[in-house]
């Protein structure tokens, strides 16, 4: 599938997965891939401390938009700020600050489960309706399970039977259930427990939320290096190539090669297992051996992302 075609499938992409699997990495790679294809991208961060801006070499994100790279803008979204915006947009400006400052929002948010999630998703919906960018990427909360985050509007419809928040919830459901407007991209690493958890999450989202699932991103895949057989006779190769390799160094080379081969094998079998359990296309992103996520690495990841999407059959 062509990258531009993929990026125009739905305007909002919610990137979700458990902490530490590479949601930020995926968000950055997708953003850059789309921007290179000429699209304008807005990244929304719910927690504001993911290191995304640092990876682009920019200062910490704020509620006001900043440009991270050409055609890539980013900002944070907090429930408090989203509520203020919402109230101010509904002629309740004077009361709004007080609601937040007295801590009343906490009480209200407790009274209405999922209220904070609704405020955030409601803001995303508004940004989508305002067509602020060609593609909106939401880096979903890490700890809050993606499922409860996405289920929040349905839960809210049960708890609140009237009023504008209810309207907000049903508008959010409209957005989530329209594949042209929104899809979820799940991220995992090729290891046993994260794969199992991703499969559970995917089925829960499909069964209970009804939002379209995009390709699954398998992050942290060791770049395939064929070191297995060559690990066997290093001294013989050294003789052929007419170089000296000390026995100790040969030992280190062999152990490192064996470790790599074993992990590559494990990763491949976990990715295959994921494919068996979950009939969704996979896009694989490489493990970064050489440096932490920075502008150069995002470049490499965007290439890998683009290649991964282009290898997918046209849906």
């Amino acid at each position: 599938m062509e990258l531009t075609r993929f990026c125009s499938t739905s305007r909002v992409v919610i990137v979700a997965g458990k902490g530490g699997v590479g949601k930020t990495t995926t968000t950055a790679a997708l953003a850059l891939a789309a921007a290179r294809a000429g699209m304008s991208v807005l990244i929304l961060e719910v927690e504001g401390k993911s290191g995304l801006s640092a990876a682009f070499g920019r200062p910490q994100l704020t509620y006001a938009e900043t440009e991270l790279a050409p055609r890539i803008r980013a900002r944070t979204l907090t429930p408090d700020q989203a509520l203020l915006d919402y109230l101010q947009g509904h002629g309740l400006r004077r009361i709004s600050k007080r609601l937040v400052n007295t801590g009343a929002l906490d009480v209200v948010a407790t009274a209405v489960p999922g209220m904070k999630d609704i405020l955030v998703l409601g803001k995303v919906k508004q940004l989508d309706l305002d067509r602020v960018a060609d593609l909106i990427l939401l880096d979903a909360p890490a700890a809050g399970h993606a499922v409860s985050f996405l289920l929040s509007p349905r839960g809210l419809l049960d708890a609140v039977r009237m009023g504008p928040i209810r309207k907000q919830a049903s508008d959010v459901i409209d957005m989530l259930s329209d594949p042209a407007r929104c899809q979820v991209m799940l991220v995992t690493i090729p290891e046993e427990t994260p794969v199992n958890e991703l499969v559970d999450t995917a089925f829960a989202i499909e069964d209970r939320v009804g939002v379209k699932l995009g390709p699954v991103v398998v992050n942290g895949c060791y770049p395939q290096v064929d070191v297995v057989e060559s690990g066997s006779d290093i001294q013989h190769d050294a003789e052929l190539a007419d170089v000296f390799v000390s026995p100790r160094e040969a030992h280190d080379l062999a152990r490192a090669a064996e470790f790599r081969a074993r992990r590559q094998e494990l990763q491949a079998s976990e990715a295959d297992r994921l494919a068996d359990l979950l009939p969704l296309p996979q896009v694989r992103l490489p493990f970064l051996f050489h440096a932490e996520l920075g502008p150069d690495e995002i470049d490499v990841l965007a290439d890998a992302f683009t290649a991964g999407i282009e290898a997918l059959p046209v849906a």
Partner: protein
Amino acid sequence: MTHSLDDLVEHGHIVICCGTGGVGKTTSAAVLALEGARNGRHAVVVTIDPAKRLAHALGLAALSNTPHEIDRALWDGDGEAAPTGRLAAMMLDTKSTFDTLVSRYAETPEQAARILQNRFYRNISGALSGTQEYMAMEKLHELHEDGGYDLIVVDTPPSRHALDFLDAPQRLMRLLDNHVFRLLMMPTRAYLRVASVAVQVFLRTISKVVGTEVVEDVVAFFRAFEGMEQGFRERAGRVIELLADEGTRFVLVTTPRRDAVQEAEFFAQRLGETGIDVDALIVNRVHPRFGDESPEGLRSRAVELAARAGTTDEPAIKSAGSRLASLYDNLADFQEISEREGHHLAGVQERVGSAEIAHVAFLANDVHDFDGLRAVGRLLFEGSKGRE
């Protein structure tokens, strides 16, 4: 005063495992409890959200409110454990822990029933951020008072901020103390008379946004809760004291990833501000290091070998050269990541001062049985010996 891992499982009374999500906290907690039991202690591990297969191995099929003792034959396969050792496990049930607490402090069964049925309460007990943390600490207190365990190892919830559990008791009290909502506790008609015009407007606004039913639920809850705050407050105070107790040890769990380490460092700092030392630092998923050659040297060797292979037309020599080049590249990759991990960890290692630092290398498989836990235990307790 800090203690080694051995000392911790042999003499610690309460061990709290903290760290950000996905770093292996639950596994580390289970390993520490198992090692305690092997050392002859009556140990229990309180888990929060274990991966399914680990939960299964610990005999935890469902959430429970009481620990369940694990058959010795299961956890002491090699029969080497001290005869007095016992091991129990539980998976925290936040809601029923909270329900028990309400029933305990209610003045009458009717008061308890009114609260337990209230919708606002049900939301608090199920979903309020911090409740899970608070209940984990509450359970800890209960096991400490009445459980008869020598060693209680607690896993902490995978919070957005790793230290939510420290603030959880206070956070709940703040919610109950919220002055705006205390006004709501007055009888419905009276509050309209007493409350200032501003408050009335304010309450009407909330009703407008979320509907009157929600406000009524909240009012009913605060009214039903009347008289119980004192009990809760005292209990929260005792939990906080217990955290600062001499027999309570803190184990910080992390991985060498930059973001996890930053979180761990922040956590160690916050604990320090509270006057609590980190007793041990467990670093999981460490990449192995092979030899001590520098990555730069290895990388340039690889480049050189590849270049030489490029100059020959003899296929056997060419392929031998490029095979060697890729071996050097591969070793350079691992030396590079290992150096970077060491660099990330330097800050937190300094921050935890004299605490024992134990590294657990990348494991070939996930841990989901007692053999796996024991293998990690060996890495932790035997692998850490002789380190500086």
